[in-house]
């Protein structure tokens, strides 16, 4: 029984069957990659995990509880954090403030009326946020506006914000999209370190095979809304169906 169990999930947008009978099990403390050509339904699937979309059929269970029909913030409070394709951070706030918000969310839940408390008095939050910044090598940017950071730094900040909540499942949506090679390698190293240091399950959607094969322990290949195969990276590499799916794509693209 995996920490994330996806059973018979289907989703239709008008005439397009985006997802069709998807079954997927993500084992606890593993790194599971979902790959597939453009339009395979990867992002749709991810959105079904976090409450942005509700599938038409099937079930999504996290740690034995259904996530369907819950709001994104409720699902997050269950222990699922999400990193977006383009970093979603609080651009108008300072880096430190960005870091403190998930710490508050972890400690106080979805809402707390702490309207006359003063931030400098929240010693435990500050300590935790500073520790995370230190850990992610972002301390130098502490008082900067998040908007003025480089893209690589924004990505690290977003990952740090997710980790500050000690999630049990971290979802990454093409975390290295649009990154230069050096930044991509840094991100791979960072994710490897996270995997080694924490009890955390990582599910990753990725285009870049270099990233996938450096990180994943299991890979699911999605094509036209249906899982083709699920196996270890070594077995996926030479799998004829996978080649077909990708080659088919390159042919149509050309």
């Amino acid at each position: 029984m995996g920490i994330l169990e996806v059973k018979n999930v289907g989703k239709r947008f008008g005439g397009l069957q985006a997802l069709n009978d998807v079954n997927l099990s993500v084992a606890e403390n593993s790194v599971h990659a979902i790959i597939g050509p453009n339009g395979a339904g990867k992002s749709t699937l991810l959105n079904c995990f976090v409450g942005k979309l509700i599938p038409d059929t099937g079930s999504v269970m996290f740690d034995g509880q259904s996530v369907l029909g819950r709001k994104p913030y409720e699902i997050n409070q269950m222990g699922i954090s999400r990193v977006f394709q383009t970093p979603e951070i609080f651009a108008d706030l300072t880096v430190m403030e960005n870091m403190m918000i998930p710490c508050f969310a972890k400690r106080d839940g979805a809402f707390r009326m702490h309207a006359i408390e003063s931030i400098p008095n929240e010693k435990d939050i500050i300590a935790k946020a500073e520790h995370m910044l230190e850990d992610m090598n972002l301390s130098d940017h502490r008082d900067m506006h998040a908007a003025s950071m480089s893209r690589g730094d924004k990505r690290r900040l977003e990952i740090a914000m997710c980790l500050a909540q000690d999630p049990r499942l971290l979802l990454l949506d093409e975390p290295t999209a649009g990154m230069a090679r050096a930044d991509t390698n840094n991100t791979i190293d960072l994710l490897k370190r996270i995997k080694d240091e924490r009890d955390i399950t990582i599910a990753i959607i990725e285009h870049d095979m270099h990233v996938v094969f450096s990180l994943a322990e299991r890979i699911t290949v999605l094509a036209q809304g249906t899982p083709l195969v699920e196996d270890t990276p070594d077995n996926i590499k030479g799998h004829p169906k996978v080649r077909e799916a990708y080659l088919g794509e390159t042919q149509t693209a050309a």
Partner: protein
Amino acid sequence: MFGLNKRDTGLIAIVTVLVILAPFILNPFPEGSAMAQFNAGYPDLMQRFVIFGIFAIGFNLLFGLTGYLSFGHAAFLGVGSYGAIWMLKLFSLNVIPSIIMGVIVAGIFALAVGFVSLRRSGIYFSILTLAFAQMSYALAYSVLTPITGGETGLQIKSTDSPLLSNLEPGEIGRASLFGLDMRSSFEIEMGDWLFTFNTGYYLAGIVMILAFYLAIRITRSPFGMMLRAIKSNQQRLNYTGLNARPYTLAVFVISGMYAGLAGGLMVAMDTQVGPERMFWTASGEVVLMTILGGAGTLIGPVLGAGFIKYMENIISKINKGILEQWFAFMPDGIEDLLITLVYPFVGKGWHLTLGLMFMAVVIFLPGGLVEGGQRIGRVFRRRDRKSEHAEADAAKQRNTPAE
């Protein structure tokens, strides 16, 4: 001090001193001199400064922090006023229960309106709040006449006999603070200068300082940080396990209570209320004050409220005769030309000036007066130091929340 950092303590100290000394500061010109018309140190105007200051501070908590633009905030002020005047008419002529009533009534009303309106955001939210406010106005004007007095509104009448006040039959009650008449003033004459110290003004002033202090605390609190996060990126907030709705609703209600407080104070000063207080242009005015001063800054709304009320008062008093006096030193032709050019903007043309000011601020100075001040400050600092340093300093300043 009081849980504030050094800068904020300094800010509130300055505001406190200004409020206390306002009767002096606002009357810089001797009585009877040509410049006396620019004096603003009389009770009626000073009361409006601080009361609209409170209104704008409250509006700014909502708009400045979360970015939700309410176009119907005057409704809360109006509802608070009605609540307050009924307390004066029925319960006690002491203004304290009446002001508290204004705050409570406005808070409850804001809870209902906010519960519905906050289900949408952006332009839809603005139009929903506008719709609610116009509805309240229409109701107060017509159907609810038994409660609101309709078009004429409500005043304290000789037939009112509040529960806790012993009035002679036929005596018209006057609002007071534990026996201290709101309208009582004492005057100091110093040479040609006349300074007026009014009870009502000082009550409203003290309330404003407290309201300002509370607003600083809220802005600097974790709650305030969450509100800024809502403005910055609601998606990230949702995916960080935080529910934006109760946060926005809470600040909407707080903001409505500030408006109710302002409404209650208005009633305490002039013991009357009419439905025009809720009209949507009144809502537009508080938006303007906040923007003009600097939305999202602490002191901005207070400055904006003061600036607009002062300009309104001064500019709408200027007439042709005064213009002729001003330009009398010019040659005749130029004098006439200048008067013709300026006249549309003064006196009854005050709203034209207001509209132009509004546009100018939004176009050229989106950060309002506070940003303008900072820009000027930066220019001077750049002259003082070597350019690199100043640049770095300016960048830093942009990154810390403005005061």
